[in-house]
């Protein structure tokens, strides 16, 4: 069975879909980059700038943790 390679475009699409489900009225503060609503984050992901890349990294870190386990005990 060959491994299915996911393109960065598909990853961005996946993260965008996840961000779309973020509750309205919430913002995400990413350090000195500023605070962003979900609509703004989606724009940044689309552009692929520093903020967009960061949010993709955070979301993918979470999704990958399902494989490795995200509780501290899972990692022992």
């Amino acid at each position, binding site marked *: 069975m060959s491994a299915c390679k996911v393109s960065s475009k598909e990853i961005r699409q996946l993260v965008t879909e996840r961000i779309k*489900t*973020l*509750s309205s*009225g*919430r*913002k*995400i*503060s*990413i*350090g*000195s*980059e*500023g*605070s962003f*609503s979900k609509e703004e984050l989606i724009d940044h992901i689309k552009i692929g700038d520093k903020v967009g890349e*960061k949010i993709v990294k*955070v*979301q993918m*870190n*979470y999704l990958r*943790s399902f494989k490795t386990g*995200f*509780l*501290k005990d899972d990692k022992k």
Partner: protein
Amino acid sequence: MRKGSFLLTRPNHEPTVNYLFAWAEKVLEISKKKNIFSIDLSKSSANKKQFVSSVKRFRPSFIYLNGHGSLNSVTGFDNKPILSFADNEEITNDCVVYALSCQSAKRLGKSCVSRGARSYLGYNDDFIFVFDEKNENNPSELDQTASYFLDPSNDLCQAVLEGKTSGEAVESSQSAFEQSIIKFSLSDATAEERELLPYLLWDREHQVCLGDSQAKCEFISEEEYNKQRKTKLYILISVLIFFISFIFWRLGFTPQR
């Protein structure tokens, strides 16, 4: 172990740091309840000049920095650096430092430890938090969403103020993050709770303790500090009187040629 004061910096010039400012207030209340001599460099006082002079004057054993950060610096008011790589890290000598800021543990923290900081607690990547937009201009403990991120940070500070080791302090913060992560992973978690998981996980994974994990702080009270100052002043006056007396004695008793 030397007893020292507690020094915190908390600028308030824009929304993100306003949240840190509000939560640091709670830490300050804890330190005051414990009768710890606390120096609060808040608002525009959170600048490099006042930071450096306050550290030299009050010799804190615990420094708590709130502000934006990068690999090379932690900033104060108007995002101007107050602690920077290859600049003034030696100011943290013999201190436990906690920086609630992005990335600073990655380079600046290591440099502080190599220049004498007992431990440097912080984040080796961005510190990310979610908050309710309606509270953006008035952050307070009423913002339950932000509290899931900022309360664990306060737990770390509280542990240090209670005399726990740096390792234990980070562990206490990690446990607080972990509790939310477990709670929001359960099947009865709401969608609003579940969507916080990626960010809670991120902050927990990037929180680090550099240097001596066994380092802990002992604190002086304001009364003790004032007593020490008075004692130093008395010693200085006594030495001065001695020298003046000596000079008079020499003038009076040295035979003239």
